[in-house]
């Protein structure tokens, strides 16, 4: 990492300063997203969080969770939506296109090469075993990334208890009861939305409101 021209370790309150890390150009964005996509075996999200939030710091954890929420709620592949939103934030529609191209171009070439090259050897036990092992690890990567995002809830307007209750019921609904996503969002997400709205309005009504 090159030495920073500005004094490091600005306090949190000054994150609006223009020295905040961001992609230098459309090409830099394209290559950064391409690199992320090509590291994403069994899911790209874990790599996006590592690279863009922790290493490059283009996004804070809170921004990441917010963008991820929009990406998940909208139809379409989640990480593709996420790349689009991040690209748009920095360079407008051209950034969105560059990020989209980065997310899709090389993975498409790789998967097509695999399709053509591996057409005959998918039945070999060692290949199937390797796929099983990679699948189990990538499941862990997705779950671990979720746990890693939990600190973003500390500043949540709904309060810690409500966040814990919401998260626990979503997990039970999806993992154990196998409720379809749309019903989970309606049944848990909608009440959560009204609770958050109520809290935000209550906080806005109290000047310097007590937590």
């Amino acid at each position: 990492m090159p030495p920073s021209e500005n004094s490091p370790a600005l306090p949190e309150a000054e994150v609006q300063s223009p020295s905040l890390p961001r992609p230098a150009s459309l090409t830099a964005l394209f290559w950064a997203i391409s690199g992320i996509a090509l590291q994403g075996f069994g899911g790209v999200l874990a790599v996006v969080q590592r690279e863009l939030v922790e290493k490059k710091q283009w996004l804070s954890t809170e921004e990441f969770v917010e963008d991820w929420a929009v990406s998940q709620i909208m139809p379409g592949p989640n990480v593709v939506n996420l790349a689009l939103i991040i690209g748009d934030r920095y360079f407008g529609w051209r950034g969105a296109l560059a990020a989209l191209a980065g997310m899709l171009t090389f993975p498409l070439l790789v998967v097509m090469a695999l399709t053509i090259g591996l057409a005959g050897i998918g039945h070999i036990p060692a290949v199937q075993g390797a796929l099983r092992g990679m699948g189990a690890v990538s499941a862990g990567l997705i779950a671990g990334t979720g746990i890693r995002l939990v600190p973003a809830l500390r500043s949540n307007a709904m309060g810690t208890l409500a966040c814990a209750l919401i998260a626990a019921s979503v997990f039970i609904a999806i993992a154990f009861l196998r409720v379809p996503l749309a019903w989970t969002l309606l049944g848990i997400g909608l009440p959560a939305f009204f609770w958050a709205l109520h809290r935000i309005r209550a906080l806005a009504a109290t000047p310097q409101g007590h937590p």
Partner: protein
Amino acid sequence: MTGFGYGNLLDLLGCFVTLSLLSVGGAITTVPEMHRYLVAQNPWLTDSQFSASIALAQAAPGPNVMFVAVLGWNVGMASGGGPANGPLPWALAAAAMAVSMVGIIIPSTTLTFFAARWGQRNRERAEVRAFKQSMAPVVIALLVATGWLLTASHGNVQQAPLLWVLTVVSAMLVWKTRIHLLWLIGAGALTGMLGLV
């Protein structure tokens, strides 16, 4: 094998455009519907060609929507008579792949683009802030649940104990350390190849 031809490209496009707009939670959530259309309703892919296409795409790096490209490719390749049948099946496969990807990607990304811009312009509104705040615990729990479901699809803890250990250990390592993720994937491939899980 008959079935898919150039005349069906528009049908394929229509199918994926519709599914793109319905794919809340990712393209993978529409797999049952794709199966119905490509295998049951039309004679374009066999059951095993369908599952093999998805398994192969899972092993490749990148967004998991790439399985749609593999499905499209294999629809064209199978109906064209296979890779040894001259250039025609390759052309049909490439066309079906391109149509499938355009269909699944463009509608949802266009919608997301404008929705995200609207949200960004109105980010000070209480409703928009409430939406983002309320969704934060939901999406975090969804990630953990997705990891759980992916491993559970191979069997429960009694049936596949070592697979669960592998998942839990990787989750702990991602949570607590900064180990490069490719090491973890490589270790998973190796343990699987040696028949340990």
